[in-house]
């Protein structure tokens, strides 16, 4: 029987073994470094990025675009979701548009945003925004429509009016649904920023990835993928903490 307390240790050992095998295969010449550079070469590329400081403007660009799109997407998604759930006309007008946006892979809008907003940060924020806003819209819209009727009746029988319902039932419910989807939204926001940078940019991790691809620099590509992975996992951890703290009643 596996002791669940040491699952992390077993995973760490497994990862170490995979990396050791990969490194060994690379040094033995079994892997073409053009396609699969050894972990030590990836590490060197990663250290180089930080050593000469050239990574910081790129990190800043990606973070600004992702977090800007995330914040804007949450605000607009919540506002539209609440409006659609409470005002039938808004739902009638918005639902088809949002459904179409939800059905298509929204990253295909990236070139359009570049034409409209240029290759600067605005087009990346726009792509992150559209990815997040549609997700949050449906979360809030469906959430409010499925709010527990018993809670609504309880507040009404306690003498609460429309304002009390919004404050004590709908808003906390919306907060719970948004926080429950925060990790997915963070992932979407970084996807939007990186894909936007990949399409056309002068800065950002997506731009660096595109550069590494065009120069066949696989070590840099792996280093960047690793960096994005670590960054997103860090933000996931922060979002998870926030979710646990704010949803401690759940």
């Amino acid at each position, binding site marked *: 029987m596996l002791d669940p307390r040491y699952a992390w240790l077993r995973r760490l050992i497994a990862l170490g073994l995979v990396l050791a095998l990969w490194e060994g295969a690379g040094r033995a010449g079994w892997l073409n470094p053009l396609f699969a550079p050894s972990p030590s070469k990836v590490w060197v590329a990663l250290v180089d990025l930080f050593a000469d400081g050239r990574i910081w403007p790129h990190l800043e660009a990606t973070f600004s675009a992702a977090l800007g799109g995330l914040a804007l997407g949450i605000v607009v998604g919540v506002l539209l979701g609440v409006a659609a759930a409470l005002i039938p006309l808004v739902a009638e007008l918005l639902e088809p548009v949002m459904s179409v946006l939800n059905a298509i892979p929204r990253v295909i809008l990236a070139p359009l945003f570049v034409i409209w907003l240029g290759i600067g940060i605005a087009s990346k924020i726009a792509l992150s925004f559209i990815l997040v806003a549609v997700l949050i819209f449906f979360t809030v819209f469906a959430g409010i429509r499925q709010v527990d009727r*018993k809670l609504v009746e309880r*507040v009404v029988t*306690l*003498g609460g009016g429309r304002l009390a319902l919004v404050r*004590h039932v709908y808003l906390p419910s919306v907060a719970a649904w948004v926080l429950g989807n925060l990790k997915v939204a963070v992932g979407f926001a970084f996807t939007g920023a990186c894909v936007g940078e990949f399409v056309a940019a002068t800065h950002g991790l997506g731009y660096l990835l595109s550069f590494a691809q065009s120069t066949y620099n696989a070590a840099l590509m792996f280093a960047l993928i690793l960096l994005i992975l670590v960054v997103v996992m860090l933000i996931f951890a922060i979002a998870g903490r926030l979710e646990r703290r704010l949803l401690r*009643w759940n």
Partner: protein
Amino acid sequence: MIGLQQPLSGTVETTLGQAEIGLLFQDDALLPWKTARDNVVLGLTLNGMERGKALVEADTWLDRLGLAGFGDRFPRHLSGGQRKRVALAQVLARRPKLILMDEPFASLDAIVRSRVIRDVVALVEQGGISVLLVTHDLEEALTLSDDVYLLSQGPRARITQHYHVPIPRPRDPVHSRTHPAFAPLHEQLWADLSRAVDHRAEAA
């Protein structure tokens, strides 16, 4: 009666305002994101009480219902009986003149149910509160009520029988079962109900 549903025809006449009527559901219907104390406070502040005073009042009622020290817990972290007591505190703290109860004890297990019922009876008798209780449990109906009305099957349910329960107050719900009036009334109620069910089955 409390205005959650509008009548298709006819009117409901009452001299009581909505604030004077409390409602206890089968489900406790506590707001899950509010602590036990804040759930009780909500009932008071929505009634116009200032929050500071409502907090003191809420703690008093939680204490009276045996929940001292549980005020900071969220409903999910309370047992079924404790949640029911919080819901009861929420209703009683508003000092209602009438409480409408819709099978409020159905979801509780036997021991917890018996204890909650004992507390409800004591508090309702002390407060001189009228209660309209809807239940499928004949024993519960007889041990808690002064008058029992048998309703026909809905829709358009009507009162078909009325029984007066002469068990004196204050009552102990457990010992009420040993009162001489209990067994004959229970038998009568059971027979009338069985007849109504058989009649319905034949009609179907």
